[in-house]
């Protein structure tokens, strides 16, 4: 093949290489959610209440223990699972029983869930229980929220800030 034609061929192939790199480094565009949707993210990392309170050991129990381990109080480490429920516009949208982490189930319960929803005014009801000794739910929040298209609503739990938070 004549050299000029070879050079033209090389230029075309280098151009094709650049075209492939240039195109796929930014195209085709990716849209994560349809334009009319918003995203609700539920996420918390929370330590539930202890499953039971401390109790006084009896003298007989203490006698059975080695002398260096005769603590008068028996305090269990296990924590309650955290139960969370979300209703959207009156319909159940999510329910999760988050078990505590750790071999002794004494760590935090964590939850992460995301669900895209249609943007607009939505009634949101969130219920949470972090104490196995309490029937039902000990935290509730119900609110009308306005979700603009593309908005991210984060549902979190922070005991210092009053429990269930929306941001």
């Amino acid at each position, binding site marked *: 093949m004549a050299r000029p034609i070879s050079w033209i061929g090389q230029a075309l192939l280098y151009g094709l290489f650049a075209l492939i790199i240039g195109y796929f480094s930014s195209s085709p*565009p990716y849209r994560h959610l349809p334009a009319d949707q918003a995203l609700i993210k539920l996420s918390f990392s929370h330590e539930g209440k202890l499953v039971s309170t401390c109790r006084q050991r009896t003298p007989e129990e203490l006698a059975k223990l080695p002398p260096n381990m005769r603590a008068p109080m028996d305090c269990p480490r296990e924590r309650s699972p955290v139960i969370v429920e979300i209703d959207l516009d009156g319909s159940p949208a999510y329910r999760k029983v988050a078990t505590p982490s750790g071999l002794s189930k004494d760590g935090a319960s964590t939850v992460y869930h995301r669900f895209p929803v249609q943007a607009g005014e939505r009634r949101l009801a969130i219920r949470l229980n972090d104490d196995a000794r309490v029937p039902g739910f000990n935290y509730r929040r119900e609110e009308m929220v306005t979700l603009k298209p593309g908005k991210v609503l984060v549902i979190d739990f922070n005991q210092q800030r009053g429990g269930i938070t929306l941001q």
Partner: protein
Amino acid sequence: MVDAQTLGEALTRFEARRFVKPLDSIACGALIAYHRIEHGFDKAFGAALNPWCHLGALGFLFFWIIAVTGLYLYAVLDTSVDGAYRSIDWLSREQWYLGGVLRSVHRYAADAFVLVTLLHLLREFLLGRYTGFRHFSWLTGVPLLWFVYISGVVGIWLRWDLLAQFSAAATAEWLDALPVFATPLIRNYLSASAVSDRLFSLFVFVHIGVPLLLVFGLWFHIQRISRAEVFPPLALAAGSLLALLALSVALPVASQAAADLSLVPGPLAFDWFYLFWQPLMYATSAGAVWMLAAGATLLMLALPALPHAAAAPVAKVDPDNCNGCRRCFEDCPYAAITMVPHPGGSPGRQLAQVIPDLCASCGICAGSCPSSTPFRTGAELLTGIDMPHMPIGELRGALQRGLAQLAGKKGIVVFGCDQGANVAKLAGEDVASFSLICAGMLPPSFVEYALRGGAAGVLVTGCRAGGCAFRLGNRWTEERLAGMREPHLRAGPPGKAVRVAWADRGEEAELGVALEDLREALAAKPLHNADPIASPLAAPRRMTAHG
């Protein structure tokens, strides 16, 4: 051009591999398609500069471009939540002529790096280069893919725009699918207040640290290859760099809007080279992508262990005929030969020793051995290092018989190799052809022996230039025939001609043209006495693409 017959031959080769049958036909079809593409590039680049034959070296080139441009980017990067976006965006807006171009080259080189890496992997797979003596390079190459992706994906986060926000959150969700984190990583990206400056220090640490691991891994990857090509031919390197520069000027990389964790990003200018798996995750699930990634990795790691054809016998050293000259040690493409003290020799004398696990059974060592000369007078030709399944002595015997058949016919001896064009297909009563394991197995003295034994010309062939199945076979052959490497070709009798024509399997027609070319040259006029052996490196007139 690869024809239907070649398809049949390729299928036969796959049969020999005894790989999973349904996959064989798919892989074989892909191999045929690949050969067509690779050979098509020869028309523009020539075989020696064909980028498909230098994918690994191109990967090194792009890596170093990334490293050098990255030094400048690191100098101006503000590793804080607010500063990261601002400092990178400033480069493109205010310093587009330097920082902006460097940023674009950095990014495009990173994309090119992942592209050539994947093509390199695919090519080696299609050519069956993952088993036997090549298993080490294959196994050490697979984990490098993870390093490439980790460093590349984290690099995208450093600009902290909407794409970075999306990618970081998607990666966190993907990692959270594994039950190993006490607190979900995604909590780092729930709101603007959750993202800290320390997180960006971690990004920088990973983006620089993982490439350092990559360099270390690459060093392992090429450990069992002598004279590894860690830089492509200059023309190819210059062309690739110019292409990246032109792209960077024509289409400079720019940040998208600054990250805003209270919003879901709208349409994103998406880097599909690195992030393709994130849309896939949302279309399926994090578990599915984990299954895909882990499954692909495990499959690639398991490939060398799957049943394959038995390996050919490795080279064998004959201490009585090895003088410790080190030529086989120098020429072995896979560093499979070491030199040890000769057990029966005088002090200082050495003996070649073959490491069986590393030996490719290519025979290049036999071609380099000074004892592999057919002019030796012994009834049995023994050499210092030889291939048990194709001894040099048998080659001499076959050559002697072939020369006897050519007597009085102005015949041509063709030396080819089992990996390249099939020399047995060359027609003509005036042709005696011999197929070696590799062209590099041919001791140059056999060429001279053929010419002095009555052949009018010798044609040497093997895999196309730059495409030797054993990496260095054609290079050593060319250098030996040109007198640039030992053992070299001595001047032969006047009026004879030697030609070299590289051609792959399936290119027998092109090789036939080269043979005809040689016939015509021999018939046209007697070669001048002052030029007893025509330049062996001169390409045949009608086969410029492969010469």
